[in-house]
């Protein structure tokens, strides 16, 4: 805003002039309004439009990047499973062969047994990594069973008791929709494990009118309000972008000592192919 002191008084504006000005304002062709005391910029609408357009571009870019990342993940998962998994299995078979065909001294036998155990553990880890990279179970079992399985795996890996609740059963989901929901839950659970210091967590997948409401709730120390407002905190941007690609919303709430709740609301049609029958969890 630029303040000036005009010497002259303005004459009365005619209706025709006023209409013309209103029209020019409505069609966003005005830069500034010249007042008797100052000149005011008219940029809000333009900035708003530019911002919206920029957001749309970013969203499209994020969707493309995500799709690319999913393909790469699938590729890496396949490589890990096929190549590394095969090699480790061969190694395990080799160790077993040595144990049973060669006469070994007790210390060597013990060492071989220990190596064999290590290889078994590594095979298990490789499988877990492959599954995490590419949740094949999502295609095989569907979203509900995958989330149930994820809750169980989370409890086993972290020791944090994780429960899964839903009022959906036997629902068919769009691949992109279910994958987005799964990734959001996965990211939220990672946050619980890393930051929450919680002893229990609950994953919710509920049908509420025309929306699918996904929640991840924990009883930990609670996210600080400053972190909720911070856009880059705790992978919230990624989760929000995933929700936005499905026309959904994401909310994060927490209070000190009372845990954190992540709520994602997505239109049912963006995730479910057919409306599932509701039932108790």
């Amino acid at each position, binding site marked *: 805003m*630029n303040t000036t002191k005009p010497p002259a008084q303005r004459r009365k504006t005619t209706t025709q002039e006023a209409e013309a000005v209103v029209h020019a304002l409505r*069609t966003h*062709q*005005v830069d500034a309004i010249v007042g008797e005391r100052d000149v005011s910029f008219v940029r809000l609408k333009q900035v708003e439009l530019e911002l919206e357009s920029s957001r749309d571009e970013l969203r499209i870019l994020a969707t493309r990047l995500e799709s690319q990342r999913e393909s790469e993940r699938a590729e890496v998962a396949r490589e890990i499973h096929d190549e590394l998994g095969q090699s480790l299995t061969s190694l395990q078979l080799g160790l077993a062969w040595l144990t049973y065909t060669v006469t070994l001294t007790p210390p060597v036998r013990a060492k071989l047994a220990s190596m064999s155990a290590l290889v078994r553990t590594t095979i298990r880890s490789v499988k877990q990594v492959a599954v995490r990279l590419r949740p094949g179970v999502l295609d095989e079992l569907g979203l509900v069973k995958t989330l149930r399985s994820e809750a169980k795996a989370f409890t086993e890996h972290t020791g944090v008791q994780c429960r899964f609740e839903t009022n959906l059963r036997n629902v068919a989901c769009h691949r992109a929709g279910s994958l987005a929901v799964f990734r959001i839950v996965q990211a939220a659970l990672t946050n619980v494990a890393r930051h929450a210091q919680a002893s229990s967590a609950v994953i919710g997948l509920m049908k509420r009118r025309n929306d699918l409401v996904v929640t991840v709730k924990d009883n930990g120390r609670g996210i600080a309000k400053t972190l909720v407002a911070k856009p880059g905190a705790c992978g919230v941007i990624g989760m929000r972008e995933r929700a936005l690609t499905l026309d959904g919303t994401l909310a994060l709430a927490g209070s000190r000592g009372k845990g954190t709740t992540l709520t994602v609301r997505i239109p049912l049609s963006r995730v479910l192919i057919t409306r599932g029958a509701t039932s108790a969890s």
Partner: protein
Amino acid sequence: MPHAGRRPAAIHAHRAPRTGARAKTESAANGSETYAFRLFVAGSEPNSTTARHNLTRLCEQYLPGRHRIDIVDVFESAALALKHHVLVTPTLIVLKPRLGVTLLGNLSETRQVLATLRLNGHGR
């Protein structure tokens, strides 16, 4: 190509031609008179810049060698803007010939601008 803004242009002739200006109007239409414009802009804001480009282009195309453009930045000459009853920028006032019209907006609607300036029959 017109130097277009983000939105369709809005051109408004909001002062009816005065009776005394009629003879001049006829003279303008015969394609011989020099045009004098005063364009009120707000610094280098998008619509002001667009209006400036569009006016220059139209003058070079339809009024070669017989136009004068006076650019007034309202941030520097608010008093002049008030004197000319300028309410918003960009605003184009036709000083000569006395057509009695004022154009608001970024002048992207070439056809409308030309019609308002009585230049629609004089393109090169």
